[in-house]
């Protein structure tokens, strides 16, 4: 294919940034030997241009990041240059760049402050914070600080235990990122000023385990036992506390036994879909004779509003994620893995990068790991602000350099995943469970928890609660037990509602607090554990505004590919706006019937889980409370 480029040329600065990024990507052990061997057979959602082997298209996302981080926006000339370097038609590169919230295709000030106004932060004063920011910095979306900065409202940043939260990014030769949580208008404004004058220190964030992991009785913790107890940059610390023992055991056992134990453990995926992890491994392992490359992907695109557990694992115990991935790769015969981490997690990204370096240096990644003839390496891919990329097939497209649009299933990832090859996708928390299973045996693990929910589970407790944070429990305790562990209801002290599972989950009422936090327990009341969100709302909260924010979230995060979700999410938001304004079309009952009808079509006819669940929380609240009267 001949590329047709228009006349726009990249500036020297843009070229330098892209050349450096490409050089680094191509020399990275995780990417260097990657040959995309797919036969290019794609479903229609993903065109493949030219010979896949000739394409460097899978480097598009990091190259776009490099331009954005250096210049603050992606110019037509820079896009042309990226297209030429990677063999991607400019119209398609533009389609990819315009998909992500973090990429700007119009000139934008180099410093961007994102203030979260999502539901967890709403309970902690995000509304007042944004109003104060408006007074200090001017209206959202308008340049401030002499045109060098801009602030904007953001969906959930995954910092809910320290709400309200803000994230500052500063483009330049030395790009900076800074997490501010809890955030105050003063602290945001002063960091914006520092960033605009090049004085922002190179320190992204710190993990304070006392705040983020407030649980008593730490000695009983398994998944969180090292968080706050070890230096997350130290492989020696990790090994001193039992790290990489499980990998050694796995090598002794061999792949078949590792998979058998994983199946026996009854470990269900912790990302939200609760699929048996061992079954995925088995399905990919069974294709080992096919000579096709296999992949292991760690899904760290944790973007469900109210979810932050994976971030804390990655920040506090990054080697555990790598060890879990390495065991998974050994089990299924994968030589290459990707960690796809959401773009709003700069600190966790840094921690993982350090850990991968350290693991490579000591041969826990790379060729012939531990002298066992097993080769595996990991590459990090940063998302760029798209909730949908947590959907596994959208994630594949995103890594491959296409728009993060979900694919139709079947075929399932275990048959046709990343680069159309057999692929295991496991969530961060799922992978951190893996060493536990290997060290204690699958059967022993299965005995922890309840019959249908085995093992340990992390819960992201936020909102009106005395001690928000991530809590680890063996499955079994109820919502009430968890709230008590977290010090009880905060705010006014009078609980109005609990959101389980995030925006894609459902609300439960104070009458349902004795529901066990298990897969089967929540299912019995028509709810879901989802990604482990337990968000509390006291009786001062205007639930109607919370529902509207959830509707706005789905409207802004739908990829737009399929009609039910693309139009349904905006119609749902419009309908809630009418109800809140007390200006229904016809009667409130008619609106309610219309909402249910739209919800059914979205649930039934959408391609992926986003559209299928976009009405769930809203309907669950309207079922439980008399709203919009």
């Amino acid at each position: 294919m001949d590329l047709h480029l228009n006349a726009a040329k990249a500036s020297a600065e843009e070229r330098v940034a892209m050349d450096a990024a490409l050089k680094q990507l191509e020399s990275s052990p995780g990417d260097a030997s990657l040959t995309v061997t797919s036969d290019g057979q794609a479903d229609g959602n993903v065109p493949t241009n030219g010979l896949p082997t000739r394409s460097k298209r899978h480097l598009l996302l990091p190259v776009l990041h490099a331009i954005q981080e250096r210049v603050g926006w992606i110019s037509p000339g820079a896009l042309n240059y990226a297209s030429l370097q990677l063999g991607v038609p400019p119209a398609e590169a533009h389609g990819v760049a315009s998909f992500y919230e973090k990429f700007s295709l119009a000139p934008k000030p180099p410093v961007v402050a994102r203030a979260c106004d999502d539901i967890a932060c709403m309970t902690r004063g995000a509304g007042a914070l944004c109003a104060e920011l408006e007074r200090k910095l001017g209206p959202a979306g308008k340049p401030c600080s002499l045109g060098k900065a801009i602030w904007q409202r953001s969906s959930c940043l995954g910092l809910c235990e320290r709400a309200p939260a803000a994230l500052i990014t500063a483009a330049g030769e030395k790009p900076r990122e800074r997490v501010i949580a809890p955030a105050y208008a003063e602290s945001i404004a002063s960091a914006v000023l520092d960033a605009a004058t090049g004085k922002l220190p190179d320190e992204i964030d710190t993990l304070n385990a006392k705040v983020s992991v407030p649980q008593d009785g730490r000695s009983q913790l398994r998944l969180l036992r090292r968080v706050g107890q070890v230096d997350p940059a130290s492989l020696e610390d990790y090994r001193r506390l039992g790290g990489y023992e499980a990998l050694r055991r796995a090598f002794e056992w061999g792949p078949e036994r590792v998979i058998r134990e994983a199946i026996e453990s009854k470990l269900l995926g912790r990302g939200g879909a609760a699929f048996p992890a061992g079954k995925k491994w088995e399905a990919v392992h069974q294709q080992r004779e096919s000579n096709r490359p296999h992949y292991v992907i760690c899904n760290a695109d944790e973007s469900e509003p109210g979810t932050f557990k994976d971030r804390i694992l990655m920040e506090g115990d990054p080697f555990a994620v790598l060890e879990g991935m390495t065991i998974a790769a050994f089990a299924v015969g994968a030589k290459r893995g990707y960690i796809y981490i959401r773009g709003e997690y700069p600190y966790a990204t840094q921690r993982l990068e350090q850990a991968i370096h350290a693991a490579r240096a000591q041969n826990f990644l790379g060729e012939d790991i531990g002298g066992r003839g097993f080769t595996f390496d990991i590459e990090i891919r940063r998302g760029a602000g798209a909730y949908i990329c947590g959907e596994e097939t959208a994630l594949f497209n995103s890594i491959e350099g296409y728009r993060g649009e979900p694919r139709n299933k079947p075929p399932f990832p275990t048959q046709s995943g990343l680069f159309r090859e057999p692929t295991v996708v496991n969530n961060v928390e799922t992978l951190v469970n893996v060493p536990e299973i290997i060290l204690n045996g699958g059967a022993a693990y299965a005995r922890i928890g309840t019959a249908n929910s085995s093992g340990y589970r992390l819960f992201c407790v936020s909102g009106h609660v005395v001690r928000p944070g991530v809590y680890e429990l063996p499955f079994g305790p109820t919502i009430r037990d968890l709230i008590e562990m977290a010090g009880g209801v905060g705010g006014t002290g009078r609980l109005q509602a609990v959101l389980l599972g995030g925006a894609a989950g459902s609300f439960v009422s104070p009458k349902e607090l004795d529901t066990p936090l298990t897969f089967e327990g929540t299912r019995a009341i028509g709810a879901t554990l989802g990604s482990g969100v337990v968000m509390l709302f006291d009786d001062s909260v205007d639930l109607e505004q919370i529902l509207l924010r959830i509707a706005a979230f789905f409207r802004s995060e739908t990829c737009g590919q399929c009609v039910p979700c693309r139009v349904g999410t905006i119609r749902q938001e419009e309908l809630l706006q009418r109800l809140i304004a007390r200006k229904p079309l016809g009667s409130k009952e008619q609106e309610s019937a219309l909402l249910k009808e739209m919800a059914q079509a979205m649930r039934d006819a959408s391609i992926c889980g986003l559209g299928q669940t976009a009405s769930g929380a809203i309907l669950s609240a309207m079922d439980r409370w008399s709203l919009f009267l």
Partner: protein
Amino acid sequence: MSEQLQAPSPLIPIPRAPAPEIPVPAARRDVQITIDGKRVTVLEGATILDAAKTLGIETPTLCFLETLTPVNVCRVCVVQVEGSRPLVPACSRKVEEGMVVWTDSERVRLSRRVVLEFLASSVDVSTALQLQAYMKRYEARPEKFGPRAATVVQPPKIDNELYVRDYSKCILCYKCAEACGVDAQNTFAIGVAGRGFHAHIATEFEIPLTDSACVYCGNCIGVCPTGALMGKIEYDMRAAGTWDESRQTRTETICPYCGVGCELTVHSQAGQIVRVSSPLDHSVTQGNLCIKGRFGWQFTQSHK
């Protein structure tokens, strides 16, 4: 020992290695499924849409076209498959032995109707005749979302003399991008850009077609199901109120420009050529043409 003595005959070459096996594609098996209570046997690899067609069941489709890879994004073809929680797109879901499919259940009818209502409430469907027919069939009432429902209304893009892009009429079926890409033209002048309700078809940075990679084959027009993409002559005639398909004749002919032999359907009205297309089932074109075949006939009506 004896092998050495047996010198190969110069006339009968002896293969030095086993002859490479040429893989023979496995014969496609028959698959039996049940649709709306009726059994039907189709070849493995067929879609539910194919199987429904053999039973004479008409399935609505918008983003599907025989010559393009199914993208299954419009979701108007969804059917109910027993054992599947969500509905599935008939256009791309392959049949599996024993599958039980319902194409006209209450759930199917509701989803199809709501999808059509979503489209017609956000897009100008005035020239999308097929979509209008589906709306009638499913009793769609797009006005139920009220007069303030968001739409994709925008001014038409007229940046060249051959065709007009009126994205107020675009239902984002992806067909034009597919035809511009690997499914036909491999030009990649347009792609899907943006996200969510604002996802749209665009050149890079929305540059005019004349600056883009476009080669004016017009294959995007050929596959557009709504009239969002339209030849300039048709666009102007519609604007002037003179476009009248009932007065048009269609003449089958072969393109005179080169030796490929593309079949042309020449649409003329009042003695003037107003559009040229090519049949989808033509073995040479599969509906595709080049700039000359599709647009290069002005000389026939030159008055100079």
